[in-house]
């Protein structure tokens, strides 16, 4: 039996860079999500791929938003098929790298904390 494969074209690169795309083939399993495939790629092919997620598949952290074929989805609940998909970062947020964008609420930004006087002296 030939192995079924999912095909993902993934946008790479940082802010201000021309987007590059890498193609990956991932062993397909029934019911698998886009996040399952991204985690498989990081574990088995390329750990330098930047992605963001926390709760893994409960869809409670809401951190894993990406664009799949130009539509904004949660990677953890978007199912993959065996037809190729293109995965990219959110386009309405500042790109950090690869699929990760700056979705931190304004009052929770580390830069805000660091911008305050660092010492009372």
């Amino acid at each position, binding site marked *: 039996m030939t192995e079924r494969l999912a095909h993902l074209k993934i946008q790479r690169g940082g802010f201000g860079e021309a987007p590059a795309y890498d193609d990956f083939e991932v062993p397909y399993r029934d019911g698998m999500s886009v996040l399952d495939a991204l985690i498989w790629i990081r574990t088995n*092919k390329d750990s330098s791929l930047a992605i963001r997620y926390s709760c893994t598949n*409960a869809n409670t952290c809401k951190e894993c938003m990406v664009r799949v074929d130009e539509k904004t989805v949660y990677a953890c609940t978007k199912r993959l098929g065996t037809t190729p998909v293109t995965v990219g970062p959110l386009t309405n947020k500042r790109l950090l790298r690869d699929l990760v964008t700056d979705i931190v609420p304004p009052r929770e930004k580390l830069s805000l904390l660091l911008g305050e006087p660092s010492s009372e002296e």
Partner: protein
Amino acid sequence: MTVDVTTDVLVIGSGAAGMYAAVSAARNGADTVLVDKSLIGRGGATIMAQMTVAAAVGEQEPDHWSHHLQDTLESGRGLCNEELAAILCEEAPLRIRELDEWKIGWAREEGHMKQVMAPGHGRERCVYVDFLNTGPAVARTLRTQIGRAGNLRRASELTITSIVVNGGQVAGAVGLNMETGTAVTIQAKAVVLAAGGLTRLYQRNSASVNMGGDAYALALRAGAELIDMEFVQFFPIGHLAPRLVGMDPIMWDPFRYKLGGRLLNSEGDEFVQNYGHAETSNKYTAPRDVASFAILQEVAAGRGSPAGGAYLSFEHIPEADLRAAFGPVIDRLAANDIDLTKHGIEVSPIAHYHMGGVRVDGQMETRVPGLFAAGEAVGGANGANRLSGNALSEAFVFGERAGRFAAEAIGDRVDSWSNEAARSAVDEIMAGRHVAKRQSGPGLASMLVTLQKIMWQDVGLLRTANGLANARTLVQDIRWDIGDYPGASDHRFALSMQEWFDLRNSLLAAEAIIASAQTRTESRGAHQRGDFPSTDVNQTHNLISRLDGEGLSVMVAPLISKPFDLIPLEAAE
């Protein structure tokens, strides 16, 4: 080196315990900073918790915290720190009512909080937020309180890599700025470790990505002690198959509370009763350690489900009853092609909670002055097996206390920051900070998977001397392989750097579990030894772990007992 941030109290981790600690420290007058490696209030175990919270509020039926304590101690198989357990049970109702005032939305009926039964409890004691929404409601409520606090700053995407200790007391912490891959120095008079548990060390788990044992490793390296690290709780009926997305893998428990649910082997027979616990179809009373062990044994005997677990069947429940109890959840299941009226689903024990953890006193302080812990990071309150519903209770209670006592402690403490004390922690971050060419290859992400397999295989539900020794060698080998600081990696959103620090923590936490599991030559609660299948009364003690130089040591400590009076409930009626 300049200090980037100065505060009175630094809280690490923003699940329920960390958020409660931050709110508590701030309202007790301390300038407070709350940081998380992920987003504030989105990571950790809390948001995953769809379940219930145990507290003797006595609204459903008469109850008293002493009865909650009695159930907690019984679940703990004789090893609970009775002082911490009593604090947990006595103060849980205060926190439940405070969250109620903060409009968390506890489920109600006939004007009172609805409380349900859960395994191991003698009363209907567990409050919740419908439908399967307890954890997210907790996170939302505490996030609102954090937003309202005056002297509380917070920052996401800061991974604390070391606690800075100077002159024997806490001076602050050093962390990795995820966006830039640079070191951040934080001067603080007190630090609260609320960075959660370690269930991500196991192949099958209910963890979020942040549950890799950070709190334990940070505590050990700061000079604090850990207690009872051998006791990892496996949740017996974690979801195994078919692939389920958008749901917490431990979601089946409330289904069983409300509706019953039959646990079956591949031959269609119920089996938990064959492992020393009388359980019938309509009740759900087997303690977690018993049910987990029973499933494991059925799989080993060749009577497991195709994916390697057991079947959980609701086929005997009418569809209308399922719909009435779980409303929209039934639709979410349908989207996963799961129809409970037609098929059972496959379940398996999954790593769910850690009973062991940072050793603290009743004020949540470690032996390092100024270093506190809260939530799942704390060890001892739940002994060898945690009573269901106690995890969020302890997050609230220990969080509130840690924040309060940390705020009190800073009054008589001067800043003890020194650049020298922080130097090595800063250097190991800056050493790995390069814009490297894009690297392919599995790298650290695959090493974590290797670790998870080792832990599942040899340090999981059933342990032996040989398996533990093998695991310890493999864990030490990986530790050697990863070197002394992160390798060259892209520092813009420094995920690979973070993974190095995460893995270093995970390996130390793993070794602490293994070392304690090797020392405890008996079976008790969540720690089951194939080569020592009985409980040994002579090992009714705690095991304490320390990091001395480069080596872990484990020593025996006597139990902390605290007699209490069981208040008759007839009087309350």
